[in-house]
């Protein structure tokens, strides 16, 4: 078989295979042929193909188990977008924990658990710390010295807030939430939307206050 054909076969095989191919394996492709190429021919083909990849988006690389075509690292960020999955979602438990840390900071894990009525898993706290949305701001001087959590600059940045004051108060939240009208406290402005300035300047929230010690 002539060099040109050998090169074309080797190229097509390396490109179509889902695994790296060794020279031995490539030689096997020609096994049943009367006119088999030599090992040197196959090796030369690989070298030539490698050179042809100069400047291209893929390269022919030697790895432990043989040769394979792979995308070059500098174009990989774009190629990876082919498989980009939708980002996963955080659990309800995580969002509740985060919201309690934000609204009730500094707060201990025990206090969060008390409000939520269930224990807070370590993985939730870990995820929030890794995301740098919360941090340990100190320790409460009670037996065990539990960590006190607070929100971070990164948290504000992510949600595009200048400060926590921009968050609505619990009372305002109730107004927003139409699904639980029966829980509304009597509100003289019922039916009206609260003026925007009040949202900004009050920065307060009404809560049951039962969780402090």
């Amino acid at each position: 078989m002539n060099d040109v054909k050998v090169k074309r076969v080797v190229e097509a095989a390396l490109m179509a295979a889902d695994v790296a191919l060794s020279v031995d394996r490539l030689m096997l492709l020609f096994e049943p042929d009367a006119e088999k190429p030599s090992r040197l021919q196959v090796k030369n083909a690989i070298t030539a193909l490698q050179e042809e990849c100069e400047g291209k988006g893929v390269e022919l690389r030697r790895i432990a188990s043989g040769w394979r075509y792979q995308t070059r690292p500098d174009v990989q960020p774009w190629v990876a977008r082919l498989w980009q999955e939708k980002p996963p979602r955080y659990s309800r438990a995580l969002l509740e924990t985060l919201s309690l840390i934000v609204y009730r900071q500094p707060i201990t894990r025990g206090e969060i658990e008390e409000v939520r009525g269930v224990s807070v898993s370590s993985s939730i706290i870990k995820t929030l710390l890794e995301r740098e949305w919360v941090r340990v701001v100190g320790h409460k001087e009670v037996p065990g010295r539990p960590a006190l959590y607070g929100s971070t600059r990164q948290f504000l940045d992510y949600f595009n807030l200048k400060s926590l004051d921009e968050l609505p108060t619990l009372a305002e939240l109730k107004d927003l939430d139409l699904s639980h009208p029966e829980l509304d406290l009597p509100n003289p402005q019922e039916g009206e939307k609260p003026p925007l300035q009040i949202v900004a300047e009050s920065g307060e929230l009404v809560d049951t206050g039962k969780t402090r010690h």
Partner: protein
Amino acid sequence: MAKTDPSPQNRLQAELPFAVVKGEPMTVPPEDLYIPPDALEIFLDAFEGPLDLLLYLIKRQNLDILALPILRITQQYMEYIELMKEVRLELAAEYLVMAAMLAEIKSRLLLPQPVCEEDEEDPRLDLIRRLQEYERFKKTSEQIDELPRMHRDTFEVSAMQSACKEERPRPNVDLKDLLCAFHEVIQRAQMFASHLIQREHLSVRERMSRILGVLNVEDFVEFQRLFDVEEGRGGVVVTFLALLELLRNHAVELVQSKPFAPIYVKPAVKGPVEDGYS
């Protein structure tokens, strides 16, 4: 669209050799249509139905579909049906319908032809149409089979991806979802809550965090440094309230060496630390 007149040339065509075997021109098709019964199973599988079998019979006699010699075809067809009935009756049913149709055509052809009714359709016409229609799709399916096909004639290229630190997308959170979560958890808490209602300033709690943050780094901070005059009276009050709250919570301690000396704020005396992950 060959509307040919019965010309001598066309007549001649039928006499031309249809094959040349070992140099000998053959004008008579071989009479090898008989298939032994034990080969019938294979034979049946080879045909896609009565139309396919009819086409085969016609081809074997090197005849044009248009020149359908009903009698000969019917006779041969019936021979196969007889064989078939014994082996696979359920399949033979479809073939039997065809046999009945062939017999009907034959009988109509045998009837004397009333001269006046010129419009009557040739009884073979419908069958010929069906045969032609079937043949078109038979041929086309053969052509489709020959199209270059994935994994038979061609293979897709699949380059590996270069190893590259994969950035797993992190969940996005909508502020509204966060607020909803808070609303709900508070509502849930209210079901167990005592009647004590307390107003709290969010900004005070934020300031508490900030003060603790400063103390985390510096450990020992002058009281005054925690206040930022530029924040105005409101800011000063908030910081002061935050400090009082922290003191109440035993989170910080205030130290003053003597009256009127500078006051220092430091984290409360450290006991055993809980890491928060217990």
